[in-house]
């Protein structure tokens, strides 16, 4: 307590606060931003291998194909998410029905699944997996391209619905009511008033989903392996993962080239999306009252709700949970020692990364929220998005190059993996806290300080309790995201065996059933952990 008092006393000093903020920004820039895009400098320092690769048309066509697949899949998936996400967001925000709470929890579940597990589950559900899989599937989807779309929808859809709901909640429901008292049908009211106000949410949702799909490695790689297509069909990240297994002298050039292409395209996209989304003119001038009316009354709105919930059930939840079908199989001899040690490693990496995110993320989040209109605030706001949009495999590769001089092996590898996981989880935590702080009236803290609280006290006693649930939500999101990540871990080092890496290895060696049982155990551990966190943090405050 005396330490708190001391820190509290010096928090009154403006210079100390500036130094602390400076440190947080320095950490953000030096440990997160710079290593993430360090690979771009290799274009100059390793020009020899790069130009060899550029001259090799065989490799280059593979790279173009992989990049093309990545971006087109991400685009198609995001568009589908938008189309089916909008009505779902409506259901969550504007409707009240029994079981809404359960639907809400169910929707987040795929986020808690390691994507490697989703990869297995989805291929078994929709497709015709390679020999050795004992669970019957639908056998509907045989093209790897289609399968990737079905897979990526599952872990991007919750992000889209969440971002859209967050914006919808801020849009005054009276706008729609006002439009309806003026004679607009609900459909017309939504189309002419609410949707145009929705763009900010669409931008966030678009970036989140696109980036998530673009950077996903583990699930994609496993799905392709299960289908037997892993050496013929590539996305950007699986190509990097594939090359990583090769001799470094052969692999370095192509890895640099594809990483740089992915990073540059992703950054261009980040810059363009905002502009394009704001500029796009929705066709709002003309209205079709009779069509609007038909779509607003009778069976049409019910059908829309049924289709939305049906989509969530059939395309998102059922394929994700299909892996539990393995419980009907005879229990195998699982290597529990391996599973436990890799689980421990995963929790260690995720735990340290999240703590790091929170400590160094809060000052930056506070700054962005309170200085939204200054140049510095906007700069930081844009910078925070960068690790989010960069494919994690490229990010991991970049990180490995940046810290490569430290050597690898043992504890250093673990630290590097933690740094890597910090990079792509940091934006999730900062985004959540920024959003929450912006909702809080700054006068609360000002009042606390007029009553004699020092800045740290004002933060810890007033602001912190209000935004606590958002910090926890961000932390859980970051934690599960880290737990499920495969690509970055593989790209950084092959020494650190996290659970998704372990499961990927099992799949590669054909031990499908064992991989499935490990996945189920992992999912259960995750759920127990998440519920424990919720139970502990919700104790005593029901409002959170």
């Amino acid at each position, binding site marked *: 307590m005396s330490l708190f008092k001391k820190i509290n006393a010096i928090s009154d000093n403006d210079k100390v606060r500036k130094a602390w903020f400076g440190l947080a920004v320095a950490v953000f820039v030096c440990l997160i931003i710079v290593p993430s895009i360090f690979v771009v400098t290799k274009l100059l320092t390793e020009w020899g291998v790069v130009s060899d690769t550029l001259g090799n048309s065989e490799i280059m066509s593979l790279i173009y194909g992989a990049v093309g697949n990545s971006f087109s899949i991400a685009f198609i998936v995001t568009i589908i998410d938008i189309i089916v996400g909008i009505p779902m967001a409506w259901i969550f925000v504007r409707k009240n029905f029994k079981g809404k709470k359960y639907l809400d929890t169910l929707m987040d579940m795929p986020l808690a699944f390691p994507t490697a597990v989703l990869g297995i589950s989805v291929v078994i559900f929709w497709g015709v997996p390679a020999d050795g899989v004992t669970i019957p599937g639908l056998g509907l989807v045989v093209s790897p391209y289609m399968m990737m779309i079905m897979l990526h929808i599952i872990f991007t859809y919750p992000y889209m619905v969440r971002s859209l709901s967050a914006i919808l909640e801020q849009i*005054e429901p*009276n*706008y729609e*009511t*006002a*439009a*309806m*008292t*003026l*004679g*607009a*049908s*609900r459909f*017309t009211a939504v189309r*002419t*008033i609410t949707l*145009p*106000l929705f763009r900010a949410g669409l931008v966030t949702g678009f970036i989140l989903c696109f980036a998530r799909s673009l950077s996903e490695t583990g699930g994609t790689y496993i799905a392709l392996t299960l289908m037997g297509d892993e050496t013929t069909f590539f996305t950007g990240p699986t190509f990097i993962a594939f090359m990583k297994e090769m001799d470094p002298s052969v692999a370095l050039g192509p890895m640099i080239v594809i990483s740089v292409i992915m990073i540059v395209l992703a950054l261009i996209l980040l810059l363009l999306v905002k502009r394009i989304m704001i500029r796009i003119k929705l066709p709002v001038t003309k*209205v*079709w*009252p009779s069509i*609007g*009316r038909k779509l*607003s*009354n009778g069976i049409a709105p019910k059908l829309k709700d049924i289709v939305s919930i049906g989509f969530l059930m059939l395309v998102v939840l059922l394929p994700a949970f299909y892996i539990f079908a393995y419980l009907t199989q005879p229990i195998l001899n699982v290597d529990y020692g391996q599973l436990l040690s890799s689980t421990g490693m995963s929790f260690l990496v995720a735990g340290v990364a999240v703590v790091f995110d929170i400590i160094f993320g809060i000052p930056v989040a506070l700054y962005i929220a309170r200085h939204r209109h200054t140049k510095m605030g906007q700069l930081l706001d844009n910078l925070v998005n960068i690790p989010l949009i960069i494919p994690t495999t490229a990010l991991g590769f970049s990180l490995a190059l940046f810290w490569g001089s430290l050597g690898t092996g043992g504890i250093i590898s673990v630290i590097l993996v933690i740094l890597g996981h910090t990079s792509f989880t940091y934006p999730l935590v900062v985004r959540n806290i920024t959003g929450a702080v912006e909702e809080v009236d700054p006068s609360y803290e000002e009042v606390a300080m007029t009553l004699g609280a020092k800045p740290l006290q004002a933060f810890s006693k007033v602001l912190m309790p209000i935004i606590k649930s958002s910090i926890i939500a961000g932390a859980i999101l970051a934690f599960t995201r880290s737990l499920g990540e495969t690509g970055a871990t593989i790209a950084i080092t092959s020494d650190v065996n996290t659970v998704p890496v372990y499961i990927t290895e099992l799949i590669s060696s054909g031990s499908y059933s064992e991989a499935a049982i490990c996945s189920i155990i992992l999912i259960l551990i995750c759920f127990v952990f998440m519920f424990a966190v919720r139970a502990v943090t919700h104790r005593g405050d029901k409002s959170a």
Partner: protein
Amino acid sequence: MATKIELDGISMKFGDFYAVRNISLKVEEGEYITILGPSGCGKTTLIKVIAGIWRPTEGRVLVDGQDVTDVPIEDRDTGYVFQNIALFPNMDLMENVGYSPRVKDMPKDVTESVSTEYLELVKMLDRAGMFPGELSGGEQQKVAIARALASGSKMLMLDEPLSALDARVRVELRYDIRRLVKKLGITVLHVTHDQEEAMSVSDRIVLMRAGGIHESGSPLEMYREPKSIFAAYFIGETNLLGCTVTDKSRTGKTTVRLRGGKSVKAARSELEEGDAAVISVRPERVYTATEGLKAKVLSVVFMGTYWRVRTVTETKDYVDYNISTDKVTPEIGSKVYLVFNKKATKVFKRPEKGLAEAIRLE
């Protein structure tokens, strides 16, 4: 005049809670009604039911004699103005006001001439190309009213339209609104919790309390002849003193005994000798004299156009009275003798659950 709106036994239930309960009301065509009441008494719920925003749990809404209870909101043709204004932020004023003709698929030139006409009516035509965010609150609310009227509706629901505005704007705008709707012959239900606003604009006040209509009448009736303690207390200001009826003259004039035995003459009442009662007298009907109810001055406050003097009487009641600004004010702590204008007093039966319960606001 024909009946424009009729409510027949309207109840609206949210869960187990009745927001309004069994309300019946007739509104004449062109009438300006204010629905007055403390927060949470169900006044907004009532106009939302009339506008079709909510379907009542029980009862019927009739407009021009037609049952419209099940007509959807977009076909009700009832203008509605929100407390938080709710102009569409993505459209300029011209588009906002032209929204209703547009969604009814009128030709473009009709839409434009309608929005021009109504912007002109509220004197906002010179701002037609501006966006709502660029206007002050009062200007926004004018546009919101123009938008509601541009639907061609002959009924207008105003949901506390002035409560978010500055004091002076509020006063000016309320007369503007009344002038406008009277000119157009619109039937208005105006929800407010401000009794001064209600008295100054309406043809009739409907006083609501706890989901029901408590009392209604013209502003003057409600002020001069309130039928209940709550109405006397809520509309205008009043002094309430507990007492017992001691005598009634042949013409019905009542004499009451205050606590401590002091006798005071009051107006006519229905009460009998020996009944427990409460008398109400407005501060502007209390005067000082050389003898009467002895009281000690507690405070003297300048109210702008008069002085408000608060006293505690020998009967342990608090009594306020007004004196004009050109008069000398009494010293705090000094003794005064108070008399009531007995014709302006009202004698009510003392409520069984006590006076505090009778004037409780929620």
